[in-house]
């Protein structure tokens, strides 16, 4: 498997060498049988000679699932525990790393607008995948998701009518363009790129779960370096800082919703 990942990296520049092995192994095995092949070296050969096969593998390996106000309790606690901290800053910078198609980013923007903080906030929303960023900039989400998102929004402590934020159009729910005014969507690879600013908040949920331990540690170095003192780090519901090299550098703001505060 190492050989295959190395070859893919050399040939195409796609770097999966530090992705979590067991699930990588599963997905490679699945691709192997879908291609009607017997061995990983057979798959490697086809990958290198047929870019279409590489395309198929990329689809297998990229997980972009996301939702607006995903895990409503996270956004509820963000309102009650993080917003009061942010009120003390004249200017707020948030890094939303691994933002996928932008649902999480716009959810943050809506929350901050309702709390009266959005005008002095800038959200840097980054992802490795340019295709999801193109979608994110459009702020256009499937209409059939609006029922679920409305429920999430209300469960997260939202007090308006969620439909105030979008217009139903033929192509989907077009969100209020002004929500995007203070968002910068940009490409950034957590595995190789450097820190680019200092932030009060870093939100990186359900991204590092796909990385192996050493890459997780690298990304935690990056976040630690990018957070100002007393800055807040938000992870996905089943992700933990406890097993990383930075465990001692943060206080726990909320254990269930994975909010941590850089303390030292």
């Amino acid at each position, binding site marked *: 498997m190492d050989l295959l990942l190395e070859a893919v990296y050399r040939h195409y520049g796609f770097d999966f060498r530090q992705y979590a092995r067991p699930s990588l192994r*599963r997905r490679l095995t699945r691709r192997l049988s879908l291609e009607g092949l017997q061995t990983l070296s057979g798959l490697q050969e086809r990958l290198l000679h047929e870019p279409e096969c590489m395309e198929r593998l990329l689809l297998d390996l990229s997980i972009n699932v996301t939702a607006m106000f995903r895990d409503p309790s996270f956004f509820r606690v963000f309102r009650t525990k993080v917003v009061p901290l942010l009120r003390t800053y004249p200017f707020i910078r948030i890094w939303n790393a691994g933002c996928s198609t932008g649902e999480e980013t716009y959810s943050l923007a809506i929350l901050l607008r309702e709390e009266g903080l959005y005008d002095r906030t800038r959200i840097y929303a980054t992802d490795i995948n340019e295709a999801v960023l193109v979608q994110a900039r459009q702020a256009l989400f499937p209409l059939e998701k609006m029922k679920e998102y409305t429920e999430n929004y209300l469960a997260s402590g939202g007090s308006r009518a969620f439909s105030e934020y979008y217009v139903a159009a033929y192509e989907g729910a077009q969100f209020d363009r002004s929500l995007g005014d203070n968002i910068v969507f940009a490409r950034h690879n957590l595995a190789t790129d450097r820190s680019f600013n200092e932030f009060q908040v870093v939100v990186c949920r359900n991204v590092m779960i796909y990385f192996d331990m050493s890459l997780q540690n690298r990304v935690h170095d990056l976040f630690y370096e990018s957070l100002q003192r007393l800055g807040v780090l938000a992870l996905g519901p089943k992700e933990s800082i406890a097993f990383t090299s930075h465990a001692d550098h943060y206080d726990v703001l909320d254990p269930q919703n994975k909010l941590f505060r850089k303390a030292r």
Partner: protein
Amino acid sequence: MSAADHLVVVGCSWGGLDALSRLLAHVPQDLPAAIVVAQHRMHDASYLAELLARHTDWPVCEAEDKEPISVGHVHLAPPGYHLLIDGHRLALSTEGPVRHSRPSIDVLFESAAEAFTHRVVGVVLTGANSDGARGLVRIVRRGGRAVVQDPATAARRDMPEAALATGVDATVAPLEEIGPLLGQMITSHPQGERSSSHPQGERSST
């Protein structure tokens, strides 16, 4: 907490809460292993850990990504995630459901076989589908052992029957006997083999 040398992976579905409770109540307190459970359940059923903790002195926790696997602990797959074994750690994944299930018992068992080879016991309990059957075959093929709840004693017999229908070499037992059986299987395991192979790290190749 110390890292586990031996792993017991348990899969259950319909009727699983009662079955797990009865199984855990009879596991020897000093079993030198960790127990990792994948149960199909509803999204909001996060109180499973609390309910099970009433039946064992071992700590029972929902797994977090990259958590070390510890002797004398019960680790549960959180609803909506696959739970995999990665070296001596647990790994979570939100990859799509496998044959309609997430967590998938097969996914857990196959990764356990990969990481712990002959130091795994796979246990298939009650359930109304066939998840776990393939995984159990993989465990045995890699030198591990298999235990299947006696279908006659299961709330739903489909899952144990599907596991047995593979022809896998498994010990069949009612719930109350599985704990003691694990004790025998794991303590009677040849000592020499233990040190010869450690859990394969995340860098291992296929």
